[in-house]
């Protein structure tokens, strides 16, 4: 697998679109390419952020946050 092919596969990998056999091949190539491969994957994960930022924010209730913070404080005290 060339590095360009690896980059193509990495973009599919980060969104979970690779099939099991492709993932196996991808992981092998990932080891072979080393740090440049890890850098490439990290950059591809930026797409996750971009997809999320492309959506209109949805409102959550204040009660939800209160419940969350109560759970956090309870967890801290145990």
């Amino acid at each position, binding site marked *: 697998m060339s590095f360009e092919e690896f980059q*193509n596969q990495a*973009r*599919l990998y980060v*969104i*979970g*679109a*690779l*099939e099991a056999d492709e993932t196996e091949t991808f992981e092998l190539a990932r080891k072979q390419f080393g740090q440049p491969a890890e850098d490439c994957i*990290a*950059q*591809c*994960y*930026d*797409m*996750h*952020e*971009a*997809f*999320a*930022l*492309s*959506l*209109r*924010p*949805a*409102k*959550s*209730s204040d009660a*939800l*946050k209160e*419940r*969350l*913070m109560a*759970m*956090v*404080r309870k*967890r*801290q005290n145990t």
Partner: protein
Amino acid sequence: MDFLPTNGAEDNPIEVAAPRMPAAAPELEPGAPTDLELMHAIQEEDPEALSLLYDRYNGILKALILRVIHNEAEADDLLQEIFMEIWNQAKNFSAQKGKPLGWMVTLARRRAIDGLRKKQAYARAGERLQNETEQQPDAWVHNATEEEITFSDTRILVRRVINTLPVAQQQAINLAFFRGMSQREIAAHTNTPLGTVKTRLELGLKKIYDGLKELRDEL
């Protein structure tokens, strides 16, 4: 088109006024802690940091969850679980592997897709028993949150990149990212040859990746 809910001027990227270049994430007030600073504080078990992170990103993460599971009540439950997981798993976050928002989005997406699959498995079991449970109508993001729309430069520009893709490529990416489908599942779902799906995904993702890189480079 099913990739991203649109309305008004955003349907046509050409009509969108040219804003200044975006930050990677929403702009912060002067003096406000960065996401990374908040993550470090959460790692030190500071609840106030989680509270601030929640205020900053609950809307984005809930929109993402809703895009996957289309149910307001379930989205709220998942959102709460996800922020608890952020609190519990913060020690596993490493800035070397990416940015806090990317980490949170990855976590939220995974949880939402898991939730969707459980629902689908439950529904299939229900069908087999011919005992379907009546479901609430889908609560689409844009219906539930129309009043809460905040137009940001970032969102407009990211969508501008996405909107340059042919519809078929957007659909394939939508099914992969927001439904968690593999290429074979997309092929079956859309009745499209597997090779075509692969090509659509590869081309579409490369265009988005290159488009986002251009935006970053222009900063």
